[in-house]
């Protein structure tokens, strides 16, 4: 099997699995309990908090554990919105290609009377700090802009955006789910007030994430109940998952540069190879790009068929189209960078990690062109283009 869908989820590392099982076997007490077993669980929790804080340049008190990236995103936005509303600020700036955990939460806030401004992301899929500066108003409560896009891999200028927000005294949240463990994060230097991450994107367990909130930025709890996480997130702490996350994040951060170097070579070979396919186009920023992300549109075919045939050859990949998730709409990300519906339906995302090899790239570069040709050969749309009845888009 060639796994090339690391943006969807990653295989857990042995260190993370072992940290979890050790915790499940030996440190299974409730961290709120005062006897030794509970206090050891609390120690494991706080130790993990400290190590995770270190990885992103935060202090441990600024780390709140959540059930994943989605919860962290929801809570970050809700907290900032509430804070803004208390001061009469109801304007929120974001981008058109955020993850749905952001966009759907913003939609709900709109229903509640907030004004949401989604910045256009241009053909490369990015926004500039200048765009943000222009958009900030007196009543701006929050700027929420992702660190790196999960579909097309573009890396956004969060440091510059952070500087603008700090200068204008607007809270800045970044969804760093695709960045954490892969790109350097230093919340202080980057002037980030709120940040979300999710462990399963860097070889950690699913169902656990972090919401970093700079000291002084109060969080509203999304889940009410006990006083866990200093009253910011109720529910018995998922100690073993937290321990697994810390192990995974440390490992990823320790090898970040070498992994990025290795993976981006593979990525660039893939991009070069797939670019040979006629009427294809790379999606996203060719330069400011996640080391492992490759995303293409192929004219005249539909993404799901391509994925299924890749699966038959043992290649795990995904498509921008949310085909499997019950929606028939093409990816909002591809539409946001200006791809027409028709082409947006024919996308392929390959996301690599350090476990991928040159042989994987070879196999993918053999499979994709063959399958694209095969599918085009049965595509009436493609035939119409070849015959000149319809125009090529790419």
């Amino acid at each position: 099997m060639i796994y090339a869908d690391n943006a969807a989820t990653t295989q857990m590392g042995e260190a993370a699995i072992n940290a979890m099982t050790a915790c499940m076997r030996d440190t299974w007490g409730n961290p709120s309990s005062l006897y030794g077993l509970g206090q050891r669980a609390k120690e494991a929790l706080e130790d993990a908090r400290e190590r995770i804080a270190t990885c992103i340049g935060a202090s441990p008190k600024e780390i709140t554990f959540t059930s994943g990236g989605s919860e962290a995103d929801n809570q970050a936005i809700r907290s900032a919105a509430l804070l803004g509303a208390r001061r009469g600020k109801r304007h929120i700036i974001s981008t058109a290609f955020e993850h749905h955990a952001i966009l759907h939460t913003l939609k709900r806030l709109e229903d509640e009377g907030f004004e949401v401004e989604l910045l256009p992301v241009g053909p490369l899929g990015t926004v500039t700090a200048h765009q943000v500066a222009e958009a900030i108003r007196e009543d701006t409560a929050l700027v929420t802009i992702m660190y790196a896009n999960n579909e097309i891999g573009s890396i956004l200028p969060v440091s510059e955006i952070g500087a603008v927000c700090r200068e204008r005294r607007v809270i800045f949240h970044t969804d760093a789910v695709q960045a954490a463990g892969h790109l350097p994060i230093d919340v202080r230097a980057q002037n980030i007030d709120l940040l979300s991450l999710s462990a399963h994107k860097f070889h950690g367990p699913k169902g656990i994430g972090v919401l970093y909130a700079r000291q002084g930025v109060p969080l509203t709890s999304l889940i009410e109940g006990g006083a866990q996480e200093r009253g910011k997130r109720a529910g018995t702490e998922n100690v073993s998952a937290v321990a697994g996350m810390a192990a995974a994040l440390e490992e990823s951060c320790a090898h970040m540069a070498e992994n990025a170097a290795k993976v981006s070579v593979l990525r660039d070979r893939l991009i070069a190879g797939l670019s040979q396919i006629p009427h294809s186009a790379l999606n996203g920023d060719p330069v400011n790009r996640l080391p492992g992300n490759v995303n293409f549109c192929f004219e005249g075919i539909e993404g799901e068929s391509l994925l299924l045939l890749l699966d038959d050859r043992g290649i795990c990949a995904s498509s921008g189209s949310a085909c499997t998730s019950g929606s028939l709409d093409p990816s909002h990300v591809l539409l946001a960078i200006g791809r027409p519906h028709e082409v947006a339906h024919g996308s392929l995302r390959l996301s690599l990690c350090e476990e991928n090899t040159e042989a994987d790239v070879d196999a993918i570069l053999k499979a994709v062109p063959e399958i694209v040709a095969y599918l085009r050969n049965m595509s009436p749309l493609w035939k119409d283009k070849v015959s000149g009845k319809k125009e090529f888009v790419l």
Partner: protein
Amino acid sequence: MALYSETVMDHFRNPRNVGVIEDADGVGEVGNALCGDIMKIYLKIEDGIVSDVKFETFGCGSAIASSSMATELIKGKPLSEALQLTNQAVTKALDGLPAHKLHCSVLAEEAIRAAVKDYYDRQGIAYDPKDFPDCGSCEGCHG
């Protein structure tokens, strides 16, 4: 519990009747690129019988499988039977489709109707237009 039934996967992997009939007696095309599904059906009619049928499809796995199955179901059948092919029959023959993929079988049904209509039109055979709703009825395109 896989995404698709084995029958769907079989018809997707080994689609029957893919291709073009150059001298088709009727051709129907439904769907559009916006929706991500286009089906084109070519019919050869002899003595009121579907003597040959081919298809071309731009679409997802279930669209390709639905086209393949639908063509199999009408091949060699009287035109009247072909016209009665429902999307339910296609879905059933495929051992089911996921709920959000049912529109693919609807598309197959409609593509065949469109091809038959084209045949009637070419032959000057009278028909009741309301038996041939256009692609607008495809739920897949409403989103």
